[in-house]
């Protein structure tokens, strides 16, 4: 396929690997390819590179290097944190608290445990997609062993009060895990300030490579291995280290940390502009997620009378890459569980669009995008029986 111009607005699904990160990885494929567990000098180079990346990641979180455990991505980190904690603390209790808007990597893992004798409380969120803190508080029981609430939601970008949750968990002697896959590298997170015991992150969400992530595990947390085998990762996660992946993620994290403020400002400018124009120019639409407490790069709208996939395909024909809910759920017929959790009726949830910008986007691209959306929404409404009924019933004029 030819490389054609495209406006990429799906950075929550995955990001472009930073050229610096690719550059950093390259020597570890065919030059310093030694297995870090080996004792000869060739391997010392790869070991050193892995150590450096570990220190970088730990530094960003205010953690110790030996609290960082590399995984194959965010899903493995989530599975590990939750399943291994459940097992290690089963004698204390079998109750886990999470939210209704977690990623499937958390929700399906909890479902798995629910079928095996664990009890899960899925706490509600408000209409802006922020966890109901009082409900969370009330959900705590003597046998609660883990609270898992994400740092930022992947669909509507809403930021959760992890500092307060961490404090609450600590007060009750409950472990706190946060899925920071969407947040790490995008907003500042400090594991000690927020009393985070475990934190999941994934390289490809902050311009690192795919297939690599990490789980932060606070020293002292009793956690079992998830992958058994060799003695890698202090015997907690077996498997020959993905050295190039680790190096690429380390480099991307360092870059993300260093440029975080200016990137976030640029993203806020772009996403704010999108929101402003869309709200002003497109009737019967609604911004999903909290207007202020949201990831700088996230825009999520619902358009009444319009179905999301049609919108996406038409945008794609105009070279605009966007998403309708989580990338993982596309192909499914159910609308996103997150949009339902914030109270959207099914048909509105079906008509949602997620645009997640990067600092590399431009205002011109935003204009092009809004113009395209306007035109497409109008076109789809013109062929929508729901819109036809609405206009007739309400006796309204077509205001499109």
């Amino acid at each position, binding site marked *: 396929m030819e490389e054609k111009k495209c406006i990429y607005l799906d950075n929550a699904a995955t990001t472009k690997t930073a050229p610096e990160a690719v550059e950093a990885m390259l020597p570890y494929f065919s030059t310093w390819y030694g297995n870090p567990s080996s004792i000869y000098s060739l391997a010392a180079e790869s070991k050193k590179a892995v150590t450096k990346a570990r220190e970088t990641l730990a530094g960003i979180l205010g953690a110790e290097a030996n609290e960082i455990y590399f995984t194959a991505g965010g899903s493995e980190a989530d599975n590990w944190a939750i399943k291994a904690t459940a097992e290690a603390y089963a004698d204390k209790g079998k109750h886990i608290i999470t939210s209704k808007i977690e990623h499937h990597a958390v929700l399906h893992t909890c479902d798995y445990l629910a079928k095996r004798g664990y009890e899960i409380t899925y706490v509600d969120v408000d209409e802006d997609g922020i966890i109901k803190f009082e409900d969370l508080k009330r959900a705590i029981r003597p046998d609660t062993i883990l609270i898992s609430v994400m740092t930022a939601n992947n669909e509507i970008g809403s930021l959760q009060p992890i500092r307060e949750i961490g404090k609450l968990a600590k007060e009750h002697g409950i472990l706190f895990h946060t899925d920071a896959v969407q947040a790490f590298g995008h907003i500042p997170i400090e594991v000690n300030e927020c009393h985070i015991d475990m934190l999941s992150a994934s390289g490809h969400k902050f311009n690192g490579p795919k297939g690599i992530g990490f789980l932060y595990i606070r020293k002292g947390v009793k956690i079992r291995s998830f992958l058994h085998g060799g003695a890698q990762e202090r015997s907690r996660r077996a498997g020959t280290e993905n050295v190039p992946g680790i190096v690429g993620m380390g480099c991307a994290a360092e870059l993300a940390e260093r440029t975080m403020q200016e990137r976030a400002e640029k993203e806020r400018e772009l996403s704010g502009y999108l929101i402003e124009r869309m709200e002003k120019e497109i009737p019967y639409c609604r911004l999903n997620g909290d207007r202020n407490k949201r990831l700088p790069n996230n825009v999520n709208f619902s358009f009444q009378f319009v*179905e999301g996939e049609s919108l996406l*395909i038409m945008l794609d024909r105009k070279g605009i890459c966007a998403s309708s809910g989580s990338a993982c759920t596309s192909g499914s017929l159910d609308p996103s569980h997150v949009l339902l959790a914030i109270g959207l*009726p*099914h048909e509105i949830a079906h008509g949602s669009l997620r645009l997640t910008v990067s600092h590399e986007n431009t205002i011109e691209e935003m204009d092009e995008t809004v113009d395209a959306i306007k035109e497409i929404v109008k076109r789809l409404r013109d062929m929508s029986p729901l*819109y036809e009924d609405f206009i007739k019933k309400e006796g309204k004029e077509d205001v499109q």
Partner: protein
Amino acid sequence: MYSEKVMDHFEHPRNVGEIENASGVGTVGNAKCGDIMRIYLDIDENQIIRDVKFKTFGCGAAVATSSMATELVKGKSVQQAMQVTNRAVMEALDGLPPVKVHCSLLAEEAIHAALWDYAEKNGIQIEGLKRPKTDIHEGEEE
């Protein structure tokens, strides 16, 4: 994901619109599942489908199957229209992804629903036509 035919019918849907005082109108599907199709038929005294229009809320496959279904029945007799199955629609579109097969069923149902409306209004019976479910997803839930 979609064949070129599907993309063509999605991007350039044939017969979009309404027919005022249509001989028959049928609406199937529900918004909960993300698909609603409405078909308008204009049928002459010889039971020939003179014109057909549709409106659809749904995914690319829903739009394309509606468009193709209208093409397949246009100019045909009511009896011929009864032969337009979801399979015929799919074949005419060079196939659909497995998760989208239900869209072609919806298109078949929409035609039938419009024909039922026509038959009821005119007090006639069409061979092989059953009362449409108001929601084709009824009874399908697990």
